[in-house]
């Protein structure tokens, strides 16, 4: 089975629902000494709730930058990002951190997990920021690990897991707080085809069965096929759209 065959694409989404992610005229300029690097240039994007959007584009085109802005890790140089009605630039760092805890699940390409904590403890980390008690947290962790099919690995440390399993634990951690959006930056970038397929199947299930809104950056055309929408970033602009 190729990843392609095992991962059918999700049904196309319509733009009727009110947008959950709204990017308006966003620019991002990095300063490296006297040099200004203009990464995003007046970018607009509007995503409805429940969408699975993939972002593709050449290296350095600003995919990670865009994802970081939507996930509240960075602030735009111009323009505004709002998620679920919240204008992120209006939040102070502490409030922004709290907002991330409540609304965003992050998955990055590599080294998502804290190496000295077991899979279950890693998944529990974001729950430490909630009001859940120990028992409720354990309950949530069990459910999240069940969803990603790693209940039997709860007590394993990251180094005892394969790359694909590590990413699935990271996904469990991203969804355990039931966030508004899930943001994944090349979640399969470092995986072999089979593990990548597992991870993509999982993300698609999250989108279809649990209605999660997912933004994913990928270089892999197969990966993009799972997504309902594919955006192409080039030279700081959203160049094409499917």
């Amino acid at each position, binding site marked *: 089975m190729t990843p392609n065959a095992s991962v059918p694409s999700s049904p196309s989404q319509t733009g009727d629902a009110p947008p959950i992610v709204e990017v308006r005229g966003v620019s991002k300029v990095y300063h490296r000494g006297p040099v200004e690097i203009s990464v995003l240039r007046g970018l607009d994007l509007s995503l409805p709730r429940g969408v699975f959007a993939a972002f593709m584009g050449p290296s350095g085109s600003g995919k990670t930058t865009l994802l970081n802005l939507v996930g509240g890790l960075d602030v735009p140089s111009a323009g505004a990002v709002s998620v679920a009605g919240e204008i992120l630039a209006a939040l102070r760092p502490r409030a922004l*951190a709290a907002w991330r*805890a409540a609304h965003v699940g*992050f998955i*990055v390409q*590599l*080294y998502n997990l*804290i*190496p000295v904590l077991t899979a279950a403890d890693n998944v529990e980390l974001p729950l*430490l920021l909630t009001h859940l008690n120990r028992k409720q947290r354990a309950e949530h962790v069990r459910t999240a690990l069940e969803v990603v099919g790693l209940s039997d690995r709860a007590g394993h440390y990251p180094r005892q897991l394969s790359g694909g399993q590590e990413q699935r634990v990271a996904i469990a951690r991203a969804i355990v707080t039931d966030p508004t959006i899930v943001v994944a930056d090349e979640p399969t970038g470092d995986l072999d085809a089979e593990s990548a397929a597992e991870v993509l199947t999982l993300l698609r299930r999250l989108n279809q069965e649990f209605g999660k809104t997912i933004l994913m950056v990928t270089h892999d055309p197969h990966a993009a096929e799972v997504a309902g929408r594919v955006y192409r970033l080039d030279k700081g602009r959203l160049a094409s759209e499917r």
Partner: protein
Amino acid sequence: MSHLKLIRRNALRKPLRAILTFAAVCIAMFVFGLVFTFIDLLTAGAEELEKAPVIWVRHKISLMFPVPEKYEEQIQAIPGVATCAPMMWTEGAYKDPSIYFPQFGTDPNDVFDGFAGVTTDPGQLAEFQRDLTGCAAGKALADRCGWRVGDRIYLGRRLWPVDLDLTLRCIYTSTKTDDEGMLLYNIKALQEGFLKKTGHRYDTVGTYRVGVETLDQVPAVIEAIDGKFADHDFPTKSEPEAAFIRSFISMWGDVPGIARFVGTVIIIFLVLICGNSLAMVMRERVREVAVLKTLGFSSARILTVLVAEALLVSTLGGLCGLGASVWVAGSGLFDMFMPGASMRMETILLSAAAAVGIGLVAGVGPAWLAVRAPIVDGLRRVS
């Protein structure tokens, strides 16, 4: 899973590194505790002494040289002098060599006059004064050696070619514990033994302890004594008791000053060692810190977790070292300076605070550097 577990796991991430840091703090705080206990002992009661109208007279050049026995009468004749007792430091060998205590040959008739804080039983004192081979011991010393009035105390020859076979006649108490650690005997017993042994009369003494009528007469009496003997073969130097004790201590140099310096150096050293090791730890964590931030951990929360980790290691190490030094200090190490000495509560608290302070000072900087980095930069970092 809890914050505490995260802190613990982080601390034990590299067990060898954790053990080395722990050991460094442990050993250093052990030494620190002993050094400061030592300083305490050397400087204890100094303020109280300043108020005692007591003068010590010694040879002008050094404590090592004696002064003539016949000075006693001349000193006693000086206006303002209440009492004058010779104090001859000897160091006879007690049967148990692990027990050290200072011994002085003195004049039982004068020695307790004007001795601030000391209380004697009049009957026992009379016995001490009557018996040529009698002796008096402080209560702390008697308790430590298990002596009771009437016991024989044999002090074998060492610096002096004389064995002293003494009988304990008097046990005195004092408000100052170090004064309770002395053994006093009649200097005549020493002189007679010396005469019998060598055929020579030993007619000098080490020092005189002079009681002055009032505190404000002390300067005048000092001037009178030193003026009187200035042109003799044995010129004197007289000092108030506090200064005398200080100069006795400084026979070996500025010991408290050196000790304090050593203590301070230990702390600075530790901060640097721990700071360096923590800086390494935190550099390796920049990416993890960024991941925690993506999860919504605030900078303040992460900083707390990281500093708590430093505190955990330094406090545990410090408490172990401190425990060891409390134990060692209480087990006879300092008996030579103060029998029954133990670490003062103030010193224990100071040391504990130092251990905590080391963790804080060494931890905050590196942790701040790790937390301060923007998330997006941290995420780009692949460790």
